């Protein structure tokens, strides 16, 4: 490092990030580090676990959750910096199969029930699961498909069920199949946003440090938002 900006000394920040946002965040952080002397250490995990850890003294500076609920809870419990909460990405779900020409651009396939298993994330734990459930409820398929639904604990596992072929199709995150460097594998239906409430992913500041503040500023920047969108998210 040659010249340090007058207002900041090189620091390390620990950022807890929801697992589903791993690739995007890795890219964002790497870009941030290029333009700064700060070092960003990313800690991936489930949002529920991160919440419990933060409540019990985990040394994280920032928390990028998979939903709104947990950051809000932390804020209410004064475990996070008040008013630091913001939405950093909006998740989109797709109905996906790794095989080509399986998924049509409507719900017919689901209605025909021509599959053994449909994989979704656990609606109770994962916002993507909640969204998938909403979609099925709106399509009036939830009860009919109850016996065919297998649930991953998180969206990553849901994806693996489908990817390994054990479930023929599943509701996964658009970000999981979309990668700026690769073409999308198999066939998918990007679920219309009318069928579910958007999956708002929020971040909150746990410790108010200069470096953390700079990182948040960067995440809100155009460059970062572009990266996030490249990985299949909407941005606010």
């Amino acid at each position: 490092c040659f010249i340090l900006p007058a207002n900041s000394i090189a620091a390390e920040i620990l950022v807890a990030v929801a697992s589903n946002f791993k690739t995007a965040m890795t890219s964002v952080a790497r870009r941030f580090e290029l333009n700064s002397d700060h070092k960003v250490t990313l800690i991936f995990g489930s949002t529920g676990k991160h919440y419990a850890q933060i409540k019990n003294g985990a040394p994280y500076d920032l928390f990028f959750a998979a939903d709104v609920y947990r950051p809000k809870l932390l804020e209410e419990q004064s475990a996070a910096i008040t008013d630091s909460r913001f939405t950093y990405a909006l998740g989109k779900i797709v109905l996906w199969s790794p095989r080509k020409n399986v998924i049509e651009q409507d719900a017919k396939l689901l209605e025909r029930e021509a599959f053994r298993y449909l994989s979704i994330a656990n609606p109770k734990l994962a916002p993507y699961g909640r969204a998938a459930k909403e979609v099925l409820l709106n399509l009036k398929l939830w009860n009919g498909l109850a016996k065919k639904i297998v649930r991953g604990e998180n969206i990553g596992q849901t994806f693996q069920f489908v990817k390994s072929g054990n479930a023929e199709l599943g509701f996964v995150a658009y970000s999981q199949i979309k990668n700026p460097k690769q073409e999308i594998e198999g066939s998918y239906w990007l679920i219309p946003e009318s069928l579910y409430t958007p999956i708002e992913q929020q971040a909150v500041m746990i410790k108010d440090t200069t470096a953390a503040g700079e990182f948040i500023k960067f995440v809100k920047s155009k460059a970062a938002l572009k990266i996030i969108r490249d990985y299949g998210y909407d941005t606010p």
Partner: protein
Amino acid sequence: MFSQPDLIALAITLKLAFITTVILLLLGTPFAWWLSRTRWRYKFILEAIVALPLVLPPTVLGFYLLIMLGPNGPVGGLMDAIGGRPLAFTFTGLVIGSVIYSMPFVVQPLQNAFTSIGQRPLEVAATLRASPLDRFFTVTIPLARQGFLTAAVLGFAHTLGEFGVVLMIGGNIPGETQVVSIAIYDHVESLEYVQAHWLSGGLLLLSFLMLIAVYALNRRFRPIQL
């Protein structure tokens, strides 16, 4: 206190642990016996392999099992070929996963117990007209009782708490593959701490009572001194 799904999960868990333990003992016993008696030069390779499933994180092991069991994996392909139902997301699949994962806890204590019996009691039994199988049941097993107890307790308890593998290949289907460990995990993840505490406490208490019963029963037969 306990919700209906929690109770169902508990029942499935007990069933899973019980069946897994039985299968583990059935498979592990002959294997451990063989390991304890063979003079094969390279048996140490097998001994090493037995311990390997332990080394991978359960979820990762589950991940590989999932791939294996899937239609493109070797096991799944086989099942397909013989017209069977795929195993992922079924109770049978859970049993297979648990068996693989808990195998070392059963094989190793049994192997030790068998080794420490030595040849003599079996030789005596042979001169008393007992066939090899007869000897095994009437001499080896009783003399290896402590080893069986350890094997069964470790196997059972480990399956109760088993989580990663089950999570991966079970699909968390209530009434079929949702076990209590996942239920507790779900409660913790979704911040339903009270339910998590109750369920954990219940599971601990139940296990504790079962273990107490097993060990107290074992105590009634005095340990065999040499």
